[in-house]
């Protein structure tokens, strides 16, 4: 099986071929990463996968979380990364990170209360600029603009309680 894997903004081609009796519990695999072939042993564990590289004896205990949009959260002991596998099947358009274009609707990620509104319609905003502060789970969370543009609409007022998914701000 061949996969396109996006890690740290780069799309890689990885093909996986089971050797012998390799199955869902584990086994030996021939792995080709960007055209370079190596053998990897992989075993399913309570947390995810345990990988060993017979060439140099290196081993990696990996904790895996599958998230929406074909994203995998990979927790190595010293570092956490996320990877999107075959992301283009989940996005219209081509590979690479989907460019944030067109009208963007910023919605509440969880139920909470609007404590501050930082912009008004017509304001120019930059990417990652704070738009609205929502108090949820006992913390104030600043929701940022996904793109540079102009605030088209502010759909809430300060003090308002919002449900998860409620439209907050439209940036165009």
């Amino acid at each position, binding site marked *: *099986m*061949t*996969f396109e*894997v996006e*890690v*740290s903004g*780069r799309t*890689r081609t*990885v*093909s*996986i071929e*089971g050797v012998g009796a390799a*199955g*869902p519990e584990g086994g030996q*695999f021939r*792995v080709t*990463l960007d055209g370079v072939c190596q053998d*990897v042993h*992989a075993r*399913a564990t*309570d*947390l*995810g*996968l345990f*990988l060993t590289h017979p060439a140099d004896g290196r081993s*990696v205990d*990996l*904790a*895996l*979380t*599958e998230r929406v949009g074909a994203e*995998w*959260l*990979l*927790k*190595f*002991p*010293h*570092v*956490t*990364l996320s*990877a999107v*596998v*075959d992301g283009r099947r989940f996005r219209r358009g081509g590979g690479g990170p989907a460019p944030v274009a067109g009208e963007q609707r910023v919605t509440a*990620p*969880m*139920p909470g209360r609007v*404590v501050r509104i930082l912009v008004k319609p017509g304001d120019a905003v930059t990417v*990652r600029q704070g738009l609205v502060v929502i108090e*949820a*789970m*006992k*913390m*104030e*969370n*600043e929701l*940022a603009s996904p793109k540079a543009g102009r605030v088209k609409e502010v759909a809430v007022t300060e*003090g308002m309680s919002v449900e*998860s998914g409620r439209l907050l701000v439209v940036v165009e």
Partner: protein
Amino acid sequence: MPRVLIANRGEIAVRVIRACRELGLGAVAVYSDCDRNALHVRLADEAHYLGPSPAAQSYLRIDALVDVARKSGASLVHPGYGFLAENAAFAAACRDAGLTFVGPRPEAIALMGSKTAAREAAVKAGVPVVPGTAAPLPSTAGDAAVLAEAERIGFPLLVKAVAGGGGKGMRTVATSAALAAAVRAARSEAQSSFGDAAIYLERKLVEPRHIEIQLLADEHGTVLPFVERECSIQRRHQKVVEESPSTALDPATRRAMAEAAAKVARAAGYTNAGTIEFLVDRDNRFYFLEMNTRLQVEHPVTELVTGIDLVQWQLRIAQGARLDVTPEQALTPRGHAIECRIYAEDPDEGFMPSPGLVRAIAVPGGPGVRDDRGVAPGFEIPVFYDSMIAKLAVWGATRAEAVGRLTRALNEYRVIGVKTTVPFFQWLVRQPEFEAGRFDTTYLDRVLAGRNGRPFVEPTAADQDEAAIAAALAAWFRAHRAAAGPGDGNGGQAWRRASRTEALRSS
């Protein structure tokens, strides 16, 4: 066997249940809709339903809690921290119902809960306070009156809500021109958060440390102050890492702070566990900040360096026991302890909460590691409360040993299902200021602002290669497991679908 009603949830309810078990007391838990299968419910001797998930309809319902205590035959009520822990009305309702509240008397909670009354109590006890207004400025105080007070105190200053906490209703003002607007903003936030628009002004110290003194006080007049906790690593006024002892204090200052804290507690007629918070300036001058009339989140670091179980003592003191710990044992740290608060938050998205189903947890173990967890695999972290998963605390003979142990334990700590603040802590422990113990309350917000949203994790090229291989293997395993998956009646279909997918992809 006396029974204790634990009027809380999560890791602190688990902590109190453990202390009850160790003392041979019965533990009665309470829960809301979303906590039916929570760890504290599973560990208790019995558990009673309070109401719907929002705290106002469950964990904050004084009437329902008192009813549960009666129904279950509990004679003691432990409030934990948060929720009703510093609510004088709750302590009074327990007393009126003939229940023993595991904490101070309601009068002491009310006195120390008002920031201005607490300041006054500290001043009366001869303990220095940060220069500020002596009495609250009511909502009727005009701009001119506030400005006159401000000029007396001096800039920069803080406008603070009398009923405030956790940084709410608080504004920093650098010049007199900005004062009126800051006062209006603080008042409106205080009114909407606490229902009380009264404010006061306080001089803002330059780069202070937040250092606090834990106390135990019994009902026979003994007040026992402990070695300090250093809590200067804060994000937006919320503690993130706590340690004991502080790298900033010499033994003489430690003793002076402990004596000052004990004086305030005596002046307030305080009993049970409590904490006096101080700000400490660069010249080791300390100022009373406020008192927390409850157990603190960060109490494990004190337990680790003194060997004294604070929660057991809370329960014993409530039952009338005499404190028979020697003052030297409480004041002399043995080694060094550090605690990290692990939340279900995504540090790379501005610490946005990441609620959801926890599928598995790998908990660190081995020497010197203490894990206080409120979450078990299979539990869905609810959106209704704070998102704490666990407190990870480590002990080492020296601070350097503790930091090394913390680094190791963080690498072992893995939660499957939600994002956590572990990557942030892995970054923090590598920072030179943290390693050197050289920081103040402004440190973390300053460096976080300077990072400009750069991710905490900076994987090497080798890490990225490994991740690409691992993700592809994960997808391969997933496809083959789905294909082999028995029991759902779609096994055959899944096989066909998988092989078709494979045929399409094979090159």
